[in-house]
C-alpha cells in the first residue's frame, strides 16, 4: 500500500495488480464466509424496501462497496504531494469488486456441483436460490460479476465524488436504513399517537419501506442534509464553547427535554417496545458500571457478571417466598439496602486479591471469579441456599403502593430502570470530575506515575470495584424483579463480554458513549438472551459483536463517541507529532509544554492537577 502512494501511476490501467488481487480475494472470501455462515439466507426474511431489497441482500451487497472503498483509499503522506484520486482508483474498485463477484460465482458453481451439506450446514439449495435470484446458474453468475464490479466501482467512487455528494449519500442511505430498522418502534409509536396512516404509508404490509416512501423520504433526507450542512456542527460547537451561566442554562434545557421525552414517550409505546427499552436500560446500567471499572480506572474486569448475579440473587433471596433457605420476604426497597451491602462486599472480596496484579492477569482472574460465582450458585453444595440449577422463582414485583412494577407490565419496569439509570448517570458524571475520578484516570494512564504523584492506587482501585459492583447489582435487582425468577444460566461470562463490547463500541470512559453503545447494540441487535429490533440477528449477534470488538480495537479504539481525554491517550503518538509540527510555529517554550503534557491541552474541560 505504501509503494502505491509513493510512485505515481502513469495511467489508469497501470495498477498495482498484487494489491488489487489481494483485496479482490479478501472481498470474495468475505462474501463466501458470509454466505456459508448462513447470514444472507436467514436475513433474507427481513425486508428493507418491500420485496426489492432484503436485509440479506443488503449484507451481501455491502461487502463489495466496503472493500472497494478500503482498497482504493489513498494513504496520504505528510509533506509529500499526494495525487488526486480519479479514474485510477475507480479501476481499482471495479476490478476488486469483479474479483469478489467472481469468487462468489465460483461458490455458486460449487453449490451446484458438490454436496457439502454434511459438515457445512448452510451449503443448501436455499443459498443457491438466494445467490441465483432463482433464475439459474448463468444468470446468477453474470449478475454477481456485474453487481460486484458495479458496487466495487461505487465504493471507489465515494473517494472521487465531491464531499457534499458523499455526505448526502451517506445521510440518505443510513437514514433509510435506520428508518427501516426502526420499523417496529415507529409503527408502535405512531399507533400510540393515533397516526396509523403514517405507518401504512411508510411501510409495506409484509415489512420494509414501500418504494414511494423510500423515494420521498430519501429526497427529504437529502434536502435536509443539504440544508443543514455545517449548521448542526456549529450548534454543537457553540454549546461546547459556552461557559458559566449560559452553558448551565443550555444544559438545563437539554436535560429537561430529555427527561420529558424519557417520561412521556413510553406512555405511547406498546408492550414490546417498552420491554425492549427496559432491557436496554438493564444493560445500560451494567455498562455504566463497567464504564467506571474499565473506562475510568482501566481495570479490565471480565467477571463483571458476578456483581450482576450477586444483585439478582440477593434480591431473590430477600424478597421471594420461594427462597429455599431464608425467606424474609422483604420489600424491594428494603432489600435494596442489602443488595448494595452485598455488592460492595463482593466488590471488595474480588477486588482485594486482584488489585496488585498486572492488568491482563487481572482480566483472567476476574473472569475466573465470575465463573466461580456462577458455578457456586449452580452447585448442589449451595443448592439448599440458592436453589442450585432450579434457581429461585416467584420473586414479587416492586410494590409502590399506587402501582406494582413487574415483568408483565414492561412500562413500569422501564420507569424503574430509568430511575436507576438516572442515579447511575448522575453518579458517574459527578465521579468523573471528582478527585476520585481524576485519580482513576491517572491510574489508567500510568499507574506508577499516579502512585508517585501521591494517589493511593489501592484505595482508588478498590473504590472502582465497589462502585462498579453496586451499579451492576442494581441492574441484577431490577432483572430479578422484572423476570420474577433467577437462574444461574442468566449469568454466563457471555454477559460480561457483551457489556464490554457495549462499553468499547460506545466509547470507553464516556457516559454519552455508553448510552449510544447500549441503544445501538442492545436495542438493535439484542442482549445475550433478549431480542433487539432486528430479531433476525438472533443467531448472528454474537458473531457481529466479535467482529465489532476487533474492528473497533483496530480502527477506532476510543469508540463511537470518544471521551476527549481517552482518545488523546490512545493516539498519544499522533498528538505528540501534531504538537511537534505545531511547535515549529510556536515559540520553543510553549511547544515543549504542549508536547510534555498532552492531557492538559485546552478543550478537555477538566483540570489535570491535584489540589
Amino acid at each position, binding site marked *: 500500500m505504501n509503494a502505491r502512494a509513493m510512485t505515481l501511476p502513469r495511467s489508469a490501467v497501470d495498477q498495482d495488480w498484487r494489491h488489487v488481487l489481494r483485496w479482490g480475494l479478501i472481498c470474495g472470501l468475505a462474501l463466501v464466509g458470509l454466505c456459508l455462515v448462513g447470514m444472507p439466507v436467514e436475513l433474507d426474511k427481513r425486508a428493507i424496501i418491500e420485496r426489492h431489497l432484503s436485509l440479506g441482500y443488503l449484507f451481501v451487497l455491502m461487502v463489495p462497496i466496503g472493500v472497494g472503498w478500503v482498497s482504493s483509499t489513498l494513504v496520504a503522506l505528510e509533506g509529500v504531494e499526494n495525487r488526486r484520486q480519479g479514474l485510477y482508483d475507480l479501476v481499482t474498485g471495479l476490478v476488486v469488486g469483479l474479483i469478489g463477484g467472481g469468487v462468489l460465482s465460483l461458490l455458486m458453481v460449487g453449490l451446484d456441483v458438490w454436496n457439502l451439506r454434511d459438515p457445512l450446514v448452510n451449503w443448501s439449495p436455499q443459498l443457491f436460490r438466494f445467490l441465483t435470484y432463482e433464475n439459474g446458474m448463468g444468470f446468477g453468475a453474470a449478475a454477481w460479476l456485474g453487481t460486484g464490479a458495479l458496487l466495487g466501482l461505487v465504493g471507489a467512487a465515494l473517494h472521487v465524488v465531491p464531499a457534499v455528494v458523499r455526505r448526502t449519500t451517506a445521510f440518505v442511505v443510513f437514514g433509510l436504513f435506520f428508518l427501516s430498522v426502526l420499523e417496529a418502534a415507529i409503527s408502535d409509536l405512531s399507533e400510540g399517537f393515533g397516526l396509523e396512516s403514517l405507518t401504512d404509508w411508510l411501510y409495506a404490509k409484509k415489512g420494509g419501506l414501500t418504494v414511494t416512501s423510500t423515494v420521498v423520504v430519501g429526497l427529504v433526507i437529502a434536502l435536509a442534509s443539504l440544508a443543514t450542512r455545517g449548521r448542526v456542527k456549529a450548534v454543537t460547537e457553540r454549546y461546547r464553547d459556552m461557559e458559566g451561566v449560559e452553558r448551565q442554562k443550555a444544559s438545563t434545557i437539554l436535560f429537561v427535554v430529555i427527561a420529558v421525552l424519557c417520561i412521556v414517550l413510553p406512555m405511547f409505546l406498546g408492550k414490546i417496545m417498552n420491554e425492549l427499552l427496559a432491557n436496554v436500560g438493564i444493560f445500560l446500567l451494567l455498562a455504566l458500571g463497567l464504564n467506571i471499572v474499565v473506562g475510568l480506572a482501566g481495570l479490565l474486569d471480565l467477571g463483571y457478571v458476578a456483581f450482576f448475579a450477586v444483585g439478582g440473587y440477593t434480591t431473590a433471596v430477600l424478597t421471594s417466598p420461594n427462597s429455599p433457605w431464608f425467606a424474609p420476604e422483604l420489600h424491594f426497597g428494603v432489600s435494596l439496602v442489602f443488595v448494595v451491602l452485598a455488592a460492595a462486599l463482593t466488590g471488595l472480596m474480588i477486588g482485594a*486479591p486482584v488489585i496488585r496484579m498486572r492488568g491482563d492477569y487481572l482480566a483472567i482472574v476476574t473472569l475466573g471469579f465470575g465463573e466461580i460465582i456462577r458455578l457456586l450458585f449452580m452447585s448442589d453444595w449451595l*443448592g439448599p441456599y440458592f436453589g442450585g440449577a432450579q434457581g429461585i422463582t416467584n420473586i414479587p414485583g416492586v410494590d409502590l403502593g399506587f402501582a406494582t412494577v413487574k415483568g408483565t407490565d414492561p412500562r413500569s419496569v422501564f420507569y424503574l430502570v430509568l430511575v436507576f439509570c438516572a442515579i447511575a448517570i448522575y453518579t458517574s458524571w459527578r465521579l468523573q470530575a471528582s478527585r476520585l475520578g481524576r485519580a482513576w484516570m491517572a491510574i489508567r494512564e500510568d499507574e506508577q506515575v499516579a502512585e508517585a504523584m501521591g494517589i493511593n492506587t489501592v484505595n482508588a482501585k478498590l473504590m472502582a470495584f465497589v462502585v462498579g459492583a453496586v451499579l451492576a447489582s442494581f441492574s441484577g435487582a431490577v432483572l430479578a424483579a422484572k423476570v420474577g425468577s433467577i437462574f444461574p444460566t442468566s449469568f454466563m461470562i457471555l454477559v460480561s463480554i457483551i457489556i464490554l463490547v457495549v462499553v468499547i463500541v460506545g466509547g470507553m470512559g464516556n457516559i454519552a458513549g455508553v448510552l449510544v453503545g447500549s441503544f445501538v447494540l442492545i436495542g438493535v441487535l439484542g442482549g445475550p438472551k433478549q431480542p433487539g429490533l432486528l430479531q433476525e440477528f438472533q443467531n448472528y449477534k454474537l458473531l457481529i459483536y466479535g467482529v465489532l470488538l476487533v474492528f473497533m480495537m483496530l480502527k477506532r479504539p476510543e469508540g463511537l463517541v470518544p471521551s476527549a481525554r481517552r482518545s488523546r491517550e490512545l493516539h498519544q503518538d499522533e498528538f505528540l507529532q501534531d504538537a511537534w509540527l505545531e511547535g515549529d510555529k510556536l515559540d520553543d517554550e510553549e511547544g515543549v509544554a504542549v508536547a510534555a503534557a498532552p492531557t492538559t491541552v485546552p478543550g478537555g474541560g477538566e483540570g489535570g492537577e491535584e489540589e
Partner: protein
Amino acid sequence: MSTHALTTKSAKRLAAVDRFLTFIRVFLVALIVVGLLAFVWQQIDADNPFARWRNPDARGLTGDQFKGLLISGLSQGSMYGLIALGYSMVYGVLGFINFAHGEVFMVGAMTGFIASEKFAANGMWEQNFVLCLLLIVLMAVFFSTFTAVLMERIAYRPLRNSPRLIPLITSIGVSFFIQNFVLGLFGPASKSYPRLPDWLSKQRSILTFEIAGTRLLVLVVAAVSMVGLWYVVERTKTGKAMRAVAEDKEIAALMGIDVNRTIVTTFAVGGAMAGIGGILWGLMFRSVTHMTGFLPGVKAFTAAVVGGIGNIGGAMAGGISLGSAESIAPMVILEPLGVPGVSQLKDAVAFTVLVLVLLFKPSGLFGERLSAEDRA
C-alpha cells in the same frame, strides 16, 4: 509491580488490604490442610471423629480409585499443557494474553472431527486407523496453524505497539468471532468422533496402573510433542531467534533477526501444538462443539501461569499440575470437608488454583521468562 515503597500515609491503608490478603491466604491454606488431614485420617481409619466431623458419609478412596483420578488428571493436564504452550510462547514474545488461543484448539478438534467422520464414512477409519490418525493430526495441525497465523496477521500485528490491554480485548473479540463463525458453519449440534478401534481403547495395566489405551496415547503424544518443541526452541536457529525476540525485539532486529517472521513462527508453533491437543481432546472425550475451546483455553492459560509464563517446560508442568489438582482436589479436599456434588466444582477448583498461585507466587512455580518491559 513494586508497590511497597510508599509514603507513610498510604502505607497504613495498604496494610489493611495486605492484612485481608494474608487472611485469605491463611484461610485457604487452612482449608486445604484440614481437608487433606481429614482425608488422610479417613484413609487410615474410616470411623474416627475427625474424619467424620464434616462429612459423616464419606467413604474415602480405594487405591484404584485414586490411581484412576491421577491418570485422568495427568492425561487431561497434558492436554492443558499442550495448549498452554501457545499462551506461554505468545506471552513471552508479545507480552499479551492471546485469549483466542483456546479457539485455535477448538479448530483443531473440529477439523479432526470432520476428517475422521469422512474417513469413517468410507470405511478407512476401521481398516487403516493409524494412517487415518496421522492424516487427521496433519490436517488439524494445518488448520490450527493457519487460524493462529491469520489471527496474528489480521488482528494482532497492527496492534504491536499499543497499550497492553488493547490486544487482549481484541483477542476476546477474535475468540468470540471464531466461536460463532464455527457455529454458523457447522451448526450448534455436538459432534462426536467415530468409535475408536478396540485395540486402542481397551484397558491396559502398566505398573499396576489401570489405564485406557486412549489416555496412554494422549500421554505419549503429549510427551513426544513436548520433546519436539523443546528441541525446536532450544536447539534450532529458529528457536534461538524466538528466544531472542522474546528477550528484546529491537535488539533482536538489530542482530538481523526478522522479527515479524519470528512472531509468525511463534504463533504457528503454538497453533500446531493446540491442533495436536485438539485431536487428543477429540479422541479422549469424543465430542466437540463450538464452545469446546473456551474452558480448556482459560484453564490452559491458568496452567501457563502456574508453571510460570514464558517458560516452556513450566507450561507443560503447569498443565499437568493443574489437571491433577482439578481431578484430585475435589475428592481429596472438598469431599472430606462435606461439600456435596464435588464433581460440579471441578472448574471452580481450577480457577481457585489460579488465584492461589497468583496470591502466593505470581511468577509461577518454575519462574517466568519475560523481557524486562513485560515484567512491569
